[in-house]
């Protein structure tokens, strides 16, 4: 079984509070259903059309209702626009199980870009007509590393009359995604790279709602993270052994936790002397542990990174290349892993009381991180000691 990784960025048209594009995602068993809908017009009206369309389609498609019936339902439900006399939102549906099988249904959005091994791999589209609307079906047999990018038309309109006379050509967008493809890169990173390019072409003021959704099949990688030492020091050894016996990578957050892990493993703990980011204390090293970092301050910064990462309206490229503890932890948690096991030790460090970094604020940060990781489709397990 693989990990269905996904991420999307949705940038609002300038001066609009609401986005007229909408991405919905549901999971039913091991089947993931994604819908990207682009409502006619912009602002409130477009937002309502896109929300209704994506929500209805996502719910019905996830329940295996034939797509013809889904489309009928949408046509019957959407409010008709008084100005234009039509009710309409374009959409793309991606349905994918964890073995890589599924389908894409496309209606009037720019054609989805399918990359295999970083090269464009044209979809075999079958045309079907429902109530005068042309809809394209493609079967999916994805392999690990394969990537689908689907967008709203804000992407092909990027830069019209500004940096590019006629907008961004579909062929050039495809070439761009090929150049930017990274096999081990996160879907969110890929989506943000394309959205950020549009944002630049628009001169940081989008002329249209611009949405990029990336779905990628990835190997399931697990990160085990230990935060804080156990309340009962007698359990140190058992907890560390259980933690280290888990498959995947291991990160230890916290000075005392690091010392406990090093002691149990009978390894040396050394610490770096570099401050790539002066808000974040330096990292440390224990042989056999992938990342050793300080606790609460690093987690606080990591949470900030996670909030930006999961915010669809954040226009910058979403990846972490910094060598400070928070960037490295964010990369492991957000980009590198499909599953995260969190071992939370609740021993209180009295020296932290009154400094704004007490145990409660640390646990609050952990809970917020956990919510974000879950919202990103990762399998998260948390245990308290």
């Amino acid at each position, binding site marked *: 079984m693989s990990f269905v990784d996904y991420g999307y960025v949705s940038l609002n048209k300038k001066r609009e509070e609401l986005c007229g594009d909408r991405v919905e995602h549901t999971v039913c068993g091991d089947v993931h259903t994604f819908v990207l809908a682009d409502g006619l017009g912009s602002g409130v009206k477009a937002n309502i059309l896109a929300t209704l369309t994506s929500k209805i389609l996502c719910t019905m498609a996830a329940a295996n209702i034939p797509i013809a019936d889904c489309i009928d339902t949408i046509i019957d439900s959407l409010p008709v626009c008084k100005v234009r006399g039509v009710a309409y939102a374009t959409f793309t549906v991606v349905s994918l199980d964890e073995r890589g099988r599924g389908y894409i249904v496309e209606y009037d959005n720019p054609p989805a870009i399918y990359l295999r091994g970083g090269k464009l791999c044209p979809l075999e589209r079958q045309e079907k007509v429902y109530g005068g609307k042309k809809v394209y079906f493609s079967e999916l047999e994805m392999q690990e590393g394969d990537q689908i990018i689907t967008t709203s038309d804000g992407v092909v309109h990027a830069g019209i009359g500004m940096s590019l006379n006629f907008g961004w050509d579909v062929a050039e967008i495809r070439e761009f995604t090929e150049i930017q493809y990274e096999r081990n890169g996160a879907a969110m990173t890929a989506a943000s790279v394309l959205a950020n390019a549009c944002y630049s072409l628009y001169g940081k003021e989008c002329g249209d709602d611009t949405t990029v959704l990336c779905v990628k099949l990835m190997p399931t990688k697990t990160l085990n993270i230990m935060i804080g030492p156990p309340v009962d020091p007698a359990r140190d050894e058992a907890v560390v052994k259980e933690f280290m016996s888990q498959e995947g990578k291991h990160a230890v957050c*916290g*000075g*005392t936790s*690091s*010392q406990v892990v090093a002691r149990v493993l009978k390894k040396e*703990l050394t*610490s*770096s*002397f570099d*401050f790539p980011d*002066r808000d974040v*204390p*330096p990292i*440390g090293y224990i042989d056999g542990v992938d990342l050793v970092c*300080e*606790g*609460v*301050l690093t987690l606080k910064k990591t949470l900030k990174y996670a909030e930006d990462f999961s915010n669809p309206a954040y226009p910058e490229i979403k990846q972490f290349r910094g060598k400070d503890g928070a960037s490295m932890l964010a990369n492991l948690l957000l980009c590198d892993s499909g599953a995260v096991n969190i071992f939370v030790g609740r021993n209180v*460090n*009295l*020296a*932290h009381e009154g*400094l*704004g*970094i007490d145990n409660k604020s640390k646990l609050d940060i952990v809970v917020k991180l956990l919510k974000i990781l879950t919202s990103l489709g990762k399998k998260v397990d948390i245990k308290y000691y």
Partner: protein
Amino acid sequence: MVIQICIGSACHLRGSYDVIEKMKALIAADNLEDKITLKASFCLGRCGEYVTVKADNEFIDGVNAATIEKIYNEILKPKALKG
């Protein structure tokens, strides 16, 4: 002489970053790199009002960004020169 400066959460908030940067500069200015080895350390178990600093086996009290220069000149440097 080995000087360990704590970079744990509490000491970080008490200014260990500035203490480290100032110490690096002071040692470089006196060309004492061969006498003093500067190291970062996780919690040394003496969290208090100041940044925890240990010179060989002795804890040095009262260190922060404001006091480090004085402490260096009056305590650490003579100690390093004495060997």
